[in-house]
């Protein structure tokens, strides 16, 4: 068994070593290199023990680095560098970028005819769209000009060419569960959902609803609940 004195020595030594190691961390200031080309970064990073970034997949991986407190993005980039991609700005007028239908600059990731391919891109992690766009962004097209029969959504198509009945069967549940955010685009108040779900025949809630419902009720002052449950 170790006595108290030994324990104290071990503890203090550990704290001392830990502090020493922590203080040895020094973030490299990159401001001196901000005018360098990305390919020149390899001069230091290659074989230095610190892997380079800004590679082929940096558009996707930059989010984690940029959201890190104390990140060194600002050593080289101003906030306008981020905003020009995320918010349609164009002070640098990058030659690779196209104007959108609103006359704002689209990020380079929006290739060729993005209007035609966006439904697939939006399926590849729907959260990506909402990093830059409000849900009202989609509304311009999806509610402004199209009737539901012409929408290319399985559950929204008519059962036959002359039918007034829509394919509103189990398809809509699967579609909604995979990308519920897209439903919000055209049905911001979910009135169409409430018509059936308020009857109690199909419970729409997630499994942990009993645990979390009180907070939703309290924070929304019951407004959300009263959409279906008139007693709230």
């Amino acid at each position, binding site marked *: 068994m170790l006595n108290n004195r030994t324990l104290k020595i071990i503890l203090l030594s550990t704290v001392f070593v830990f502090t020493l190691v922590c203080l*040895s961390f020094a973030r490299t200031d990159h401001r001196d290199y901000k005018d360098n080309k990305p390919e020149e970064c390899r001069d230091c990073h290659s074989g230095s023990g*610190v892997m380079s970034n800004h590679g082929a*997949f940096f558009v996707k991986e930059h989010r984690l680095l940029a959201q*890190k407190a104390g990140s060194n993005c600002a050593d080289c980039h101003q906030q306008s560098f981020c905003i020009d991609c995320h918010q349609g700005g164009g002070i640098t*007028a990058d030659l690779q970028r*196209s*104007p959108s239908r609103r006359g704002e600059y689209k990020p380079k990731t929006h290739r060729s005819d993005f209007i035609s391919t966006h439904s697939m891109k939006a399926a590849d992690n729907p959260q990506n769209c909402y990093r830059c766009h409000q849900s009202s962004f989609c509304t311009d097209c999806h509610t402004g000009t199209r009737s539901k029969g012409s929408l290319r959504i399985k559950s929204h198509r008519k059962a036959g060419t002359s039918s007034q009945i829509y394919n509103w069967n189990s398809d809509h549940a*699967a579609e909604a569960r995979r990308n519920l955010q897209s439903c919000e685009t055209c049905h911001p108040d979910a009135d169409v959902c409430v018509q059936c779900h308020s009857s109690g025949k199909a419970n729409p809630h997630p*499994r942990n*609803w009993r645990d979390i419902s009180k907070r939703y009720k309290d924070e929304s002052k019951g407004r959300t609940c009263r959409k279906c449950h008139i007693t709230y």
Partner: protein
Amino acid sequence: MRVMKFLAILMALACVPLLSHAAEVKLTSSTQYLWYQDLLAADKEKSQEDVAEYLRVNVTKLDKEGKINIYGYGRATKQVSTSQDLQGRLYYFYVDYRDAFKEHLDLRAGRTYVNAAAVSGTIDGLHVDIKNLGPMGITVFGGRHVIFEDKRDTGTRGDALTGMSLYLDTIKNTHIEVSYGRKYSDTDVARENIGLDFSTTPIGQANFYGRLKYDIVAETNNEILFGAKVAPLNDLVLRAEYYQSYPTFDIASIYSIFAVNKYKEKSISAEYQLTANYRVSVKYAREDFGNDADADSYEIGFLARPVKDLTLNMIYEKRNGYAGELSGIRLYGEYKISNAAIMAGIDYDDFRRELSREGTAKKYWAGVNYEFNKMISAIVRVENNVNFLYDHSYQGYAAININY
């Protein structure tokens, strides 16, 4: 009027050096003319035309030690092909006070972008970074939430963002961070998240990283990410990643009460620098949407600099599975001659949306950036789109840039 107000503020900043001999002002202006197609316009074949003025002002070295700086960036746009009003956005305008208390305190006050795993956005408020507390640091921010929408900035007085993060930089290149964020909508709490980030490089050739974003109200993980990046050779980087997301909604949204599926993605990628001037990259991702819906995604990239001042880039992408099939290639290159940088490219996509349209989309574009001198440059870019909506859609822009 708001547009004119913020432009006046930005212009007034240019006068600051008159009051302080030490201050330096860097002004960047871009005056642009754009023409483009709007498929929702009454006549979708007719080009819409905009004029835009972008202005960025950096006022630095306001104090002797160069710790206090002011940064501003905004734009004004006017659609000249219609009677639409002048519209404007103030992207940011803040005072930056670095090392306000020794080397332990950074302050940003004004309109600024704040970013943390738990919450991010633009605020009219304050960002405080208490740093170098041994290996630790604390970031706190809060203010009115500014929302950019339809060429303007919106958001009511009751929309707000607040948050903080506590971070620890321990042994070299290990970063652990816990963040907390709240979003308010019309003074009611709309979101409440906790973020956890870690990144460590135990040996020079291996980096492990992760992200957990937890929605406190929905009591579920909004995002989970784990990844490993390994460099077995100096010029070869391999990566494997697992990502999972579960969409959550604002508390007051009726959609917050619905059950949804998790989206899961497993991906592997490799990037090899063949020589200083040639790079090849490949990526594969397996996507799972739940209820037996999945997709495969492939990407191959090639970058070459065969001769001095010439850069060529090629990216091929293939996707098949839930939501549709896509096979596309993007080629572009840049060549520099004297004061001019010439760029041109082609995008070609062959797509089949599930139960919907199919076909090809082509974009041909070219542009030149000519520097008259270090202060003035001009840009012209044109493109032709051949796609489902247009037989030929010509778009482009011309800009005069001034760096003062």
